[in-house]
């Protein structure tokens, strides 16, 4: 029996641990075998290459990390011709491609192209990146738009269709519901909060673009609240992330209702965060003689 087995909609995972888009790459293969992953989520790609935001793009605050990458990526074509084959060569875990577009048509066009690729097991639709002005984010805050986008994409694929939501909204449940009724097979949350930091000595914004994305330790309680709210209100599986560093953090999210978790910022602090989390969770479940499924959604008050 595999105590760690879980599933996200159509996708069965050998364990519930994946990675947060934009915080990971095949480079981690230098530290451990990438096949230990429950799934591999790519950095968000766009239809055409994106230059990204001017630096400084990073700043570590007292309790978390600010980033303003601006979805720098080589574009879909190069992703498919170079990145994906390279990745497939070293990773046999399910590959989920995170992608973003500037119109519903562009999202659909991208998905259509990717449907030709058997090595892609699913999609994470990024409608929640705070670091680009037109791309994505505008989609993520309005239930009607989310419903239209999801319906359009769901019609084009039978693979796992994850919609990744922003916490920077008034009511995340209404947006998750729109995605679910539109045909999403699971929900990923949370993308980064909006944050800012200023150098008190100089008055200069630590990040060139000012307001940026806030992740890591500080956002764990926010992510947990969003996970609990969506998982308890809807039947759709949740892929949870936000400040998860170790198996104890992950357990909180499973109790709150997450079906799987992703490690993001923690990969930077600890390159072994992924295998350590998997191993820690496994021995904890073994010790307590329970399966992950016995824990998911069982938070008590």
């Amino acid at each position: 029996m595999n105590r760690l087995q879980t599933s996200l909609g159509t996708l069965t995972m050998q364990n519930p641990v994946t990675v947060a888009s934009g915080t990971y790459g095949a480079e981690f293969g230098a530290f451990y075998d990438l096949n230990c992953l429950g799934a591999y989520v790519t950095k968000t790609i766009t239809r055409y290459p994106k230059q990204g935001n001017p630096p400084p793009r990073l700043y570590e605050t007292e309790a978390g990390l600010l980033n303003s990458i601006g979805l720098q990526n080589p574009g879909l074509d190069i992703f498919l011709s170079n990145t994906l084959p390279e990745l497939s060569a070293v990773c046999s875990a399910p590959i989920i491609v995170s992608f973003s577009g500037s119109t519903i048509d562009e999202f659909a066009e991208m998905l259509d192209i990717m449907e030709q690729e058997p090595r892609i097991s699913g999609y994470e639709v990024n409608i929640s990146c705070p670091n680009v002005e037109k791309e994505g984010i505008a989609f993520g805050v309005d239930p009607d738009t989310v419903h239209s986008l999801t319906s359009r994409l769901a019609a084009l694929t039978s693979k796992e269709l994850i919609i990744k939501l922003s916490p920077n909204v008034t009511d995340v449940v209404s947006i998750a519901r729109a995605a679910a009724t539109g045909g999403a097979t699971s929900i990923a949350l949370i993308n980064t909060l909006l944050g800012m930091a200023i150098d008190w000595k100089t008055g200069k914004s630590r990040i060139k673009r000012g307001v940026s994305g806030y992740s890591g330790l500080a956002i764990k309680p926010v992510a947990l609240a969003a996970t609990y709210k969506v998982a308890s209100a809807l039947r759709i599986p949740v892929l949870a992330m936000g400040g998860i560093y170790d198996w104890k953090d992950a357990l909180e999210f499973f109790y709150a209702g997450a079906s799987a978790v992703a490690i993001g910022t923690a990969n930077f602090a600890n390159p072994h965060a992924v295998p350590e989390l998997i191993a820690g969770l496994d021995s904890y479940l073994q010790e307590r003689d329970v399966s992950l499924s016995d824990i998911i959604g069982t938070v008590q008050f």
Partner: protein
Amino acid sequence: MENRILRVEKAEWLNDDYFILWIKDEQLAATTQAGQFYELRKYSSDPHRLRKPISVYNVEKNFIGFFIKKLGRGTTELATMKKGDELDLVGPLGNGFPLVESQKIALVSGGIGYPPLWYLRRKLAGKNDVYWLHGGNSKADVFPCDEIWSMDGSIGNQGYVTQGLETLLKFGGFDLIYACGPEPMLIQVAKVAAEYGVKLYVSMEAYMACGIGVCHGCVVPTGTPEHIVYKTVCKEGAIFDATEICWSAL
């Protein structure tokens, strides 16, 4: 590129602000190149926080030295380390300096740009003719080299180290410059080098998160102002051919 936890073999203090941590590892010592760096943290420190990028100052008989200036939270934590304490490191990272032979070379460093050039000089010495100019704010920021500049005049020549470089290049004969230091210094070095038509390699700095090329956080602008391509310092650098950098976008 490895993630290791190694004991500090020696912690050497140069003055109130600068110290050198030595670790020992045969395999890392054998593969580490001049201009590469490691991401360091004190193993017993808060595991949620980022590591700090520190260049390789020296490699000698399986020992690797990190020459560090105590600045903010991360380096202050490293500054508490004593012999026997555990250092958690990831590296070696970055591309390293291209090594040459039979060239007349100027090394230019400013402040904490000094350490990587030390190991570089050792690698170049003997096979090349090397002259090292170093500048700092004050006496405390200056270390052994061929020509010393300080902002406050407390040691060596008073002024910018780039003034020294300019004088040097005026007399000609230099084939190559390697530079490491604060951005304003690098900009000036690049200007002078271009003026005198001397090839220049620069070691760039950037705030880092992953250190291994996955997050795209540590970029510098390359290409032209019209067509900027952001490259990662941690993976595509830290060493760049100066003509690659889009200096006006810095």
